[in-house]
């Protein structure tokens, strides 16, 4: 038991060393003063003259808050749409019996296989014909219920024991009631995963919002931050600071969400 715990920490530290590199690098670059090299061999991991000034300069350079607001709007809508839409579809595919179920599942599976680059221009034309181009709705719609999330939710609902639902059926619960009262709460972990993934994808998306939006006032954060790389000069410290600002909400979200991925604290059936 003791040895097991020590072993665990050794392993944890080992994996830690392998995974946090890029994060530290960005952090370090974003803190470097103007006299320090960004490119050097070997790279300077620790800034010699750390300064938070770069962060202030990012906000001076681009209207980061209004870009962030657009991103937040898009990301939150995306999360809500994905959690609800994917859960509903996943539930039907996993727990309901009907003709055409396999066909429906196939539609979701095949859409996983479509390369986005191949449909980008056609999708842009679809948005134009719907008169949605240059709106945030056009940014959200294509990914608003991602096939990947439908599959994840289906997988989660499949794993639920059928006994509880059978009891509910006997009690006369209809499909919607069983979905909202039994299935959804039990698949909480996966819903949180779907939420995190949706937020992340939407927050990081660059090319599609750029294509579909033409009014810079509607630009999202990733596009806004790429303004930090100008035609003539770009300062890698600013770029790094901007990236850190963009990453921070993702880290916070993960920290807040992570406890839902796990079984209840302390009642672990897996003991060392």
């Amino acid at each position, binding site marked *: 038991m003791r040895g097991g715990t020590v072993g665990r920490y050794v392993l944890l530290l080992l994996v830690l060393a392998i995974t946090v590199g890029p994060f530290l690098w960005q952090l370090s670059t974003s803190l470097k003063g103007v006299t320090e090299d960004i490119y050097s061999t070997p790279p300077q991991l620790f800034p010699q003259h750390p300064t938070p000034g770069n962060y202030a300069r990012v906000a001076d350079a681009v209207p980061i808050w209004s870009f962030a607001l657009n991103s937040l709007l898009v990301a939150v809508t995306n999360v809500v749409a994905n959690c609800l839409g994917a859960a509903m579809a996943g539930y039907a595919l*996993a727990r309901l019996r009907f003709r055409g179920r396999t066909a429906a599942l196939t539609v979701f599976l095949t859409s996983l296989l479509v390369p986005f680059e*191949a449909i980008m221009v056609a999708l842009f034309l679809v948005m134009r014909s719907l008169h949605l181009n240059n709106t945030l709705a056009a940014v959200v719609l294509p990914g608003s219920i991602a096939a990947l999330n439908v599959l994840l939710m289906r997988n989660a609902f499949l794993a639920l024991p059928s006994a509880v639902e059978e009891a509910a059926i006997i009690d006369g619960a209809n499909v919607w009631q069983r979905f909202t009262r039994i299935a959804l709460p039990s698949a909480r972990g996966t819903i*949180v995963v779907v939420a995190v993934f949706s937020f992340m994808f939407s927050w990081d998306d660059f090319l599609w919002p750029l294509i579909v939006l033409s009014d810079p006032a509607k630009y999202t954060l990733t596009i806004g931050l790429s303004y930090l790389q100008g035609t003539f000069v770009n300062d890698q410290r600013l770029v790094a600071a901007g*990236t850190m600002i963009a990453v921070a909400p993702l880290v916070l979200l993960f920290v807040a969400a992570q406890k839902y991925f796990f079984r209840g604290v302390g009642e672990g059936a*897996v003991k060392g």
Partner: protein
Amino acid sequence: MQQAAGRVKVAAEVVREPADVRRPAVRIVQQRWFTPWLFLLPGLAVVLGFNLFPFLNTVVLAFTNAKVLGGGHFTGADNFVRMVHDPAFWTAVGNSALYIVGVVPPLVILPLLLALLVERKLPGITFFRTAFFTPVIASIVVVGLIWTWLLDSRGLVNDVLRALGVLTTPIPFLTDEWLLLVSAMLVTVWKGLGYYMIIYLAALGTVSKDLHEAAQVDGAGWWRRLWSVTLPALRPTMVLVAVLSAVSAFRVFSEVYLLAGPAGGPGGADTSLVMLIQQVGTGLSGDLGYSSALSVVLFVLTLGLLLLTNRLNRKEDL
């Protein structure tokens, strides 16, 4: 029609269902025929309207010699004939296939081990969990910069090996066509660890506690319970992770692009299928017809891959 129906059925079983839910109990109650479709409506509408519908356009273009800026007419199967005779196409297909072989097994196994490692509540565990997730959210450009620095002929890895006296000439991670592919795989696995870890974690949460407790009462140790309770329960998730990682491995772009450059390594030897699509179709004079044909082939090959996985999976069941 018959054939299509069969294909539909097989594809649908790719994500396998545990035996006890094959016949959901729901069947015994009255349920209006359209109820499931109401549940599916939003999802289907989005996927059909904004994904498969635009893709049909690509399918049409695959049979034309259209350029990015329009023009072009139907040319039948010309693009596909050209593909067969295009050595770059075969290199790309080979590389993408190799990529699957290289990254899927580690991506199925390592994140699971990682999930088991961080599952327990230990002091500071939140920090570790978050840290393990950071490669997923780190910008791919920064990831590329770091790995190039690590693997460069004058990079950290080679420097350390040289300092230790292990080697005298540096390992050409970034200049040898094979090692480049291996290096890219390494980055893919590294970046995918945290991602699949959380899928596993969510699944671990649904493993029946009763079974665990029963096994414990029977005196089964940690390993034994892992082997006979946890792993069987996680099997559908493992298949899901295998499918997802295979599909994305076959469509690898960023990692190869960043390490091997836009031309795809020395002489283009490391070009992946999506990179080829991009090379052919980018720019205002891009060859839209040919790149569409390549996209269609990518699509069909991935579909074939799913069917194959499913076939193998089923054999194992017998």
